[in-house]
């Protein structure tokens, strides 16, 4: 039970942190109206409240400081200047870290924690601090002890004199219930003192005339008795005494009054009128009204709590308001994934059915085929519907990136601002999760290496503050995420030199601009002069490339000197199903993603030209494209020569190069379900995943990109190095 509430708490934290970031961003933009400020305050406050319930002390303490500062902003005691806003941003980031640590375990950066706490403390004046940490009224820390074995503890007898002030009845407090609570502590006798009751004519409505004298024999400490009266402190005259502790009683009363800043209660309550209930507002007061009634109340063990058999009607109207967000349903990811798997099986099942029907010895299968076509369309609808469940807007991811840019700017002393476009673009949840690291890396790089120092920017006639645009958009079946900075652009001479120095390329290598740019993605390449703890943690852009490749996507760089660089990440819309072309290669059935294929053609000898010893070129409408023999590059055939080169698939690589993949034949074009090879076998160069075909056989899904680079790079780079790198990654 508590576990699931804890999950709820972390889910809620995510939402609250988002709301907080959005609020702070609005404040930074100049929107500092009360509601915006309040919303941020509430978010921090709710995180603190929830964290307290689970004993997440670090989180509570930090949220508390944060909240205290924000409370002063809210009450206009503090002015939101640039410096404070930046501090609040950093505090918000740290709060997010603390939540993450609380959820996933791990240590927060204690130094950073300390710095922020003291930075926030500077804004908190000391009085406030004390007031906030003041222990609450007497008895606050009292926790009702379990019904203790009475005999063991020492019993004491307390005389309690209780006179409610008339104000007490405005607060819904009721003497009878207080006595009942007292009776839980031990053996209680109650005596009503109505001596102050005036005559009937003199009685005033709402006035309080009655007092009670109670005697409680209990083994509980005095604080337990005081705790009972906690809510009526200052609303009643209360005297608790036990044998031999007159002084203690005085102290307790003084402390009680001091806690509420009250003078000792006055004795002279106006006495004038007679007979009426002292609490006319309270109906059905079962309080003892007869004088001299001795009521013996003995505590009884509580009855077994009745298990709530029927679910109580919860009148939650989470999103009833029309202005509010659309109604949503929280579903465990597992359930959605099960559905996705089932849809995958459904699609496989469809191909099997289609195959069976094709193999049938029936004269007319047209009707069946029509129905089968309907089946296929339905399956596709279901698939799209299920995919839409997993799709989420990139907004939260982008919001997190704002933080990365802030931190990177602070660490490098540069000024950079993140502009996000297309935040509502929806992408598969897994993609969003796994995109965070590569994006972080690219953005850090953009600030660290892309954006120039303010002086350099001023000298180049640019705005001192650099701008990084983060864009998400759907582009023909894929998602494109772009990071564009307005910095100096890539220094190609330098990149080339570094690659030579590190032995990544031969000194005499002739590379075009795009090839030089893509050197950044080679393992072991880092342009940082010294390893800064920002973008160069000993890992380079190759990590980015691998992470994106693992999602079935690719990264592209383009750069214009003086104007900045653009990193594009192109990802498939879904991770589970894709359109593929089924081909045969050296007797094996394989699948090539349709998205990679520009066109297909049957070749004849006239179109093939030899180039050097190994190379062959395909001539297409007057231009030459290198041929890459799939069977050869996968090691299925030793030699790519003298084989019946049947069919060519023209594919385009990420940097715009074209290549013709030679295969033996094309069979079909169909939807295939992607089955990951993770955990089945290691990384196979040229193969991205597998699928199950209609006949139940397994077919490899090819990765044209890596096949092409693996074969063409041989001409430029050292093949062994490339291959070993590819295998290692």
């Amino acid at each position, binding site marked *: 039970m508590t576990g699931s509430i804890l999950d*709820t708490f972390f889910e809620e934290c995510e939402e609250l942190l988002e709301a907080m970031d959005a609020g702070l961003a609005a404040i930074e933009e100049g929107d500092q109206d009360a509601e915006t400020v309040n919303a941020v305050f*509430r978010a921090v406050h709710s995180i603190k409240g929830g964290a307290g*319930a689970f004993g997440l002390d670090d989180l509570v303490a930090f949220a508390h400081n944060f909240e205290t500062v924000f409370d002063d902003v809210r009450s206009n005691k503090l002015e939101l200047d640039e410096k404070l806003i930046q501090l609040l941003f950093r505090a918000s980031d740290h709060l997010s870290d603390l939540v993450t640590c609380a959820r996933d375990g791990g240590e927060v950066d204690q130094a950073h924690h300390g710095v922020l706490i003291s930075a926030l403390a500077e804004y908190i004046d000391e009085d406030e601090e004390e007031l906030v940490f*003041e222990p609450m009224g007497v008895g606050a820390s009292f*926790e009702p002890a379990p019904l203790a074995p009475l005999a063991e503890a020492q019993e004491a007898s307390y005389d309690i004199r209780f006179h409610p002030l008339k104000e007490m009845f405005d607060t*819904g*407090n009721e003497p009878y219930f207080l006595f*009942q609570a007292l009776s839980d502590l031990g053996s209680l006798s109650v005596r009503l003192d109505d001596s102050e009751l005036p005559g009937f004519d003199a009685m005033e409505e709402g006035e309080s005339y009655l007092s009670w004298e109670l005697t409680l024999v209990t083994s509980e400490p005095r604080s337990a008795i005081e705790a009972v009266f906690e*809510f009526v402190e200052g609303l009643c005259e209360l005297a608790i005494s036990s044998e031999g502790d007159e002084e203690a009683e005085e102290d307790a009363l003084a402390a009680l009054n001091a806690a509420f800043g009250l003078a000792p209660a006055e004795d002279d309550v106006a006495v004038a009128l007679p007979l009426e209930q002292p609490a006319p507002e309270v109906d059905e007061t079962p309080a003892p009204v007869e004088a001299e009634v001795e009521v013996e109340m003995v505590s009884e063990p509580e009855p077994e709590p009745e298990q709530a058999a029927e679910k109580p009607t919860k009148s939650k109207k989470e999103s009833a308001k029309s202005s509010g967000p659309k109604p949503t349903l929280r579903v465990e990811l597992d359930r959605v994934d099960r559905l996705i798997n089932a849809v995958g099986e459904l699609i496989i099942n469809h191909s099997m059915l289609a195959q069976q029907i094709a193999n049938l010895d029936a004269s007319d299968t047209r009707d069946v085929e029509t129905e089968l076509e309907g089946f296929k369309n339905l399956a596709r609808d279901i698939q799209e519907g299920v995919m839409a469940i997993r799709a989420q807007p990139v907004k939260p991811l982008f919001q997190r990136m704002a933080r990365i840019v802030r931190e990177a700017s602070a660490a490098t002393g540069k000024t950079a601002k993140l502009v996000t476009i297309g935040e509502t673009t929806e992408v598969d949840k897994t993609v969003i999760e796994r995109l965070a690291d590569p994006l972080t890396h690219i953005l850090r790089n953009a600030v660290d290496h892309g954006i120039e120092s303010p002086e350099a920017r001023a000298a180049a006639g640019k705005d001192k503050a650099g701008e990084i645009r983060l864009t998400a958009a759907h582009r023909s079946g894929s998602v494109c995420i772009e990071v564009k900075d307005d910095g100096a652009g890539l220094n190609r001479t330098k990149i080339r030199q570094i690659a030579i120095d590190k032995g990544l390329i031969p000194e005499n290598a002739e590379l075009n601009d795009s090839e030089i740019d893509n050197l950044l993605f080679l393992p072991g390449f880092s342009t940082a002069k010294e390893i800064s703890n920002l973008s160069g943690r000993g890992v380079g852009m190759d990590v980015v490339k691998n992470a994106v490749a693992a999602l079935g996507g690719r990264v592209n760089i383009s750069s214009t000197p003086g104007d900045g660089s653009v990193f594009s990440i192109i990802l498939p819309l879904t991770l589970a199903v894709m359109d593929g072309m089924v081909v045969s290669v050296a007797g094996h059935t394989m699948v090539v993603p349709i998205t990679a294929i520009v066109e297909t053609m049957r070749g004849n000898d006239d179109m093939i030209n030899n180039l050097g010893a190994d190379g062959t070129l395909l001539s297409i409408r007057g231009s030459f494209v290198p041929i890459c023999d799939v069977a050869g590059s996968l090691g299925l055939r030793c030699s790519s020569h003298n084989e019946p080169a049947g069919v060519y698939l023209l594919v385009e690589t990420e940097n715009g190069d074209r290549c013709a993949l030679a295969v033996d034949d094309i069979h079909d074009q169909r939807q295939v379900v992607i089955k990951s090879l993770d955990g089945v076998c290691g990384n196979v160069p040229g193969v991205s995943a597998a699928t199950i075909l209609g006949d139940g056989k397994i077919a490899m899904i090819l990765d044209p990109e890596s096949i092409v680079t693996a074969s063409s790079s041989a001409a430029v780079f050292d093949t062994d190095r490339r291959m070993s790198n590819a295998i290692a990654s």
Partner: protein
Amino acid sequence: MKTKVLAIDDSRTIRNLLAACLEEAGFEYHSAVDGREGVDLYPDVAPDVVITDINMPNLDGFGVIEELRGDGINSKVPILVLTTESSADLKARARSAGATGWITKPFDDDSLIFALKRVTGAVA
């Protein structure tokens, strides 16, 4: 008759914690996600006791108490305030609005039940 509790809190976490604790203790639990909804639900739920948060959107806890105690609804039922801070200031404000008592967050189940007992007499 179970004692009916109307809990008003904008935090889902707190609502869930309250629900778990109160239902287990045998209370009938109703909830509202902000002050406005709480006041709106009050007549239908007709609770025996109200537990309200202070910092909420739409209508804060003080507003809730004022509206419930005000002429329109004229509620006499106990209203407990859920507070994170236990500052005397805040208590005094809540009390002058007509709050019966307060529960400090984080609350433990025992002290929550204890507080309810003191204002409703409910053993649950």
